[in-house]
């Protein structure tokens, strides 16, 4: 089965019902729908075997979908000429090690039909951008993994793409390099380019992504801006030193009224500190609680505005709400209706 239908609504990537079943009846993707908007950095995350790489490969025509309705840059997914406007850095790229860094850029840009003069000019600029100018004439076999990754990033940008698809771009890159790559991504976004980022490093995604999608066992578990996805988790946490005393009646009533709760801090359950959690990110609503606590003589040691991290969202997405256990890594076999979870002792 191999079906393509084009749809478009202004999104750079607009996917509906993308499915992929590999031989051996492994269902890698089970009806993916996803939109990536122009000029944003979109993060794709998910556990191992969730189907992230398969989805990226379908977009890049490396893998043929079993079913796919959707567009990329306004053309049906799989439309080869459109790839001239797309830059791609795969996971663990392997460039011929007999080529120099400069030759890699030139060769792959030529494959993208970039004229020679533009190749020369772009290579010069991009080598400078990724800090590889001094290494441009050396063969890849003498490069470290991080250096290869930098060349790979430059390669993905050689055709001055409208959409850049990066699969684990910071893999093997040192912290300084990661920061530089993040800066490059932000710079590209400022130029109006759209970036589709697939990474395991949630903290990095959180730093640069405008929107994310979490893929679990071939399905989109959630997608949206990080603000939207974390809205429900936003709260204030107030730490007070109780020294064995209870919170006063007035303050307790206010906390209950706001749907809050009290208890020892999660990371120090045996301390003499109590953490009051108020499920709101509205600062004025919390003021009466603080006033009441102070009036009752409580010693406030900390007030924090808290929201769930991307890691929290990720863990929530990959955890079975019924059993509380993480789903087992890997794709779903054809015929299975519910994803398996990890064994008890895992």
């Amino acid at each position: 089965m191999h079906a393509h239908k084009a749809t478009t609504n202004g999104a750079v990537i607009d996917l509906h019902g993308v499915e992929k079943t590999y031989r051996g009846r492994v269902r890698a993707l089970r009806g993916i729908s996803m939109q990536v908007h122009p000029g944003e950095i979109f993060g794709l995350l998910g556990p191992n075997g969730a189907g992230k790489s398969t989805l990226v490969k379908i977009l890049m025509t490396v893998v043929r979908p079993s079913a796919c309705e959707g567009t990329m840059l306004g053309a049906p997914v799989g439309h080869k000429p459109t790839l001239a406007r797309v830059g791609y850095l795969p996971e663990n790229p392997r460039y011929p090690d007999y080529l120099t860094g400069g030759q890699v850029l030139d060769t792959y840009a030529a494959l993208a039909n970039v004229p020679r003069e533009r190749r020369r000019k772009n290579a010069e600029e991009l080598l400078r951008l990724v800090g590889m100018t001094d290494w441009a004439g050396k063969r890849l076999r003498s490069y470290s993994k991080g250096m290869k990754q930098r060349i790979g990033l430059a390669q993905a940008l050689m055709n001055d793409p409208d959409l850049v698809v990066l699969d684990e771009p910071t893999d093997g890159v040192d912290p300084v390099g990661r920061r530089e790559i993040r800066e490059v991504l932000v710079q590209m976004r400022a130029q109006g380019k759209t970036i589709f980022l697939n990474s395991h490093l949630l903290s990095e995604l959180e730093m640069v992504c405008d929107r994310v999608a979490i893929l679990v066992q071939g399905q989109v578990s959630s997608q949206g801006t990080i603000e939207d996805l974390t809205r429900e988790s936003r709260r204030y946490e107030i730490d007070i030193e109780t020294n064995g005393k209870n919170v006063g009646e007035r303050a307790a009533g206010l906390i209950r009224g706001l749907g809050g709760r009290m208890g020892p801090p999660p990371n120090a359950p045996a301390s003499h500190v109590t953490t009051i959690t108020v499920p709101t990110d509205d600062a004025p609503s919390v003021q009466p609680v603080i006033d009441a606590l102070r009036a009752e003589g409580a010693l406030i040691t900390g007030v924090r505005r808290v929201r769930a991290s991307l890691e929290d969202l990720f863990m929530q997405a990959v955890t079975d709400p019924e059993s509380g256990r993480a789903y087992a890594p890997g794709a779903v076999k054809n015929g299975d209706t519910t994803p398996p979870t990890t064994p008890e002792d895992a």
Partner: protein
Amino acid sequence: MIQTWAILVDSYRLLLAKKLFWATLAISALVVLAFASIGFTEDGISIFFGVTTLEAPEFAKGTALSRALYVGIFTSFIVPIWLAWVATILALVSTTTIYPDFMSEGAIDVVLAKPLHRAKVFFVKYLGSLLFVFAQVGIFCVGVFFAIGFRLGEWNWMLFAAVPLITLFYSFLYCVNVLAGVLWRSGIAALLVTMLFWFALFIVQTSENAMVQITTQHRMEAESHDAWAASLENRLERMRNPATFGERIARTALTPEAQAERIERLEADIATARERAEDRRASAAGFEKWRGRIGAMMNVLPRTQGTIGLLERWLIPKGQAGMLEVMMGGAPPPPPPEPAQNDDPGLDVAPLELEAAPPRPSVDSYEVSTRIQDELREIPAWRVLGPSLLFELFVLGLACWIFVRRDF
């Protein structure tokens, strides 16, 4: 065009990066040097640039046999042994990993993500892979061209036909290598399959050659027996000729009984000759059937030996002395004497016991080889290359189909 050029340039860079390419080139240089070291003087053959001389006046400078030997060394030894065997194995070892490496994860992704049709990538990559052999043979032929030019004073541009012919020969094997490489993505497996295929081809082609040799030999023997029978019949007819018979009997010392016995023996010899001719024909027909079967098989397989053989055909035109003449010791053996026709009226009346008996039939290997060579020369080049190219196209088409449809 930018894309095609980029793939070809990449293939060229890959070629230069292969140590085996340079090793093969170095050995080729040595082979050319050894070839160029052979020369001809007034006394015979000089070796190692004149360090020693083999006295052989029949191969003296300027003779037809000296040309036959020099060109023959190239077409009969250097091409089939070095270029079409050792260098081909080295080329296969060197190029067997091209497709599996190209299709490995991380490498293929970047290429397929370009605005480039997979079939185009596949075929241009294939052409680029043939550069290994094309460049090797090209450089080699330049050396041989100058060697032949300086040694024989013959600037034979036809020599460069070796470049496309050997590249084609190599491509008939390499397409199988590519198919196996695309199927299993393993260079070792692809090399093994190619070697097995080459060996199978060798067996089939050798069997076909053997069948050709046997059927030709048997056909020629049948012809020879027929000719013998005809000459005996001729003799018998003359013996029975009333115009001469009486006089001959009168002049011979044989008794009429002995003469009758002689005629009877002659009739028995004729019957035997005819029987043997029939037997040979039947035997040839039996082998012809097998030859036909193997030939049918070869119609769908590449004719690697035939492809290489075209070079000899083009470099040594029909009628010119070739390696066969050189190996026969410098000249073809004298043709067997014609059966006595006794056209001389004097002989017709010679006494019977004085009349020379016709020679018994015999066919030597030189005659058979010459006949086979002549027959092979009659086969047009398109009949040799056509089925081979169709085979290559089919195998490549299959490999390309798998490549285009595969998920990486």
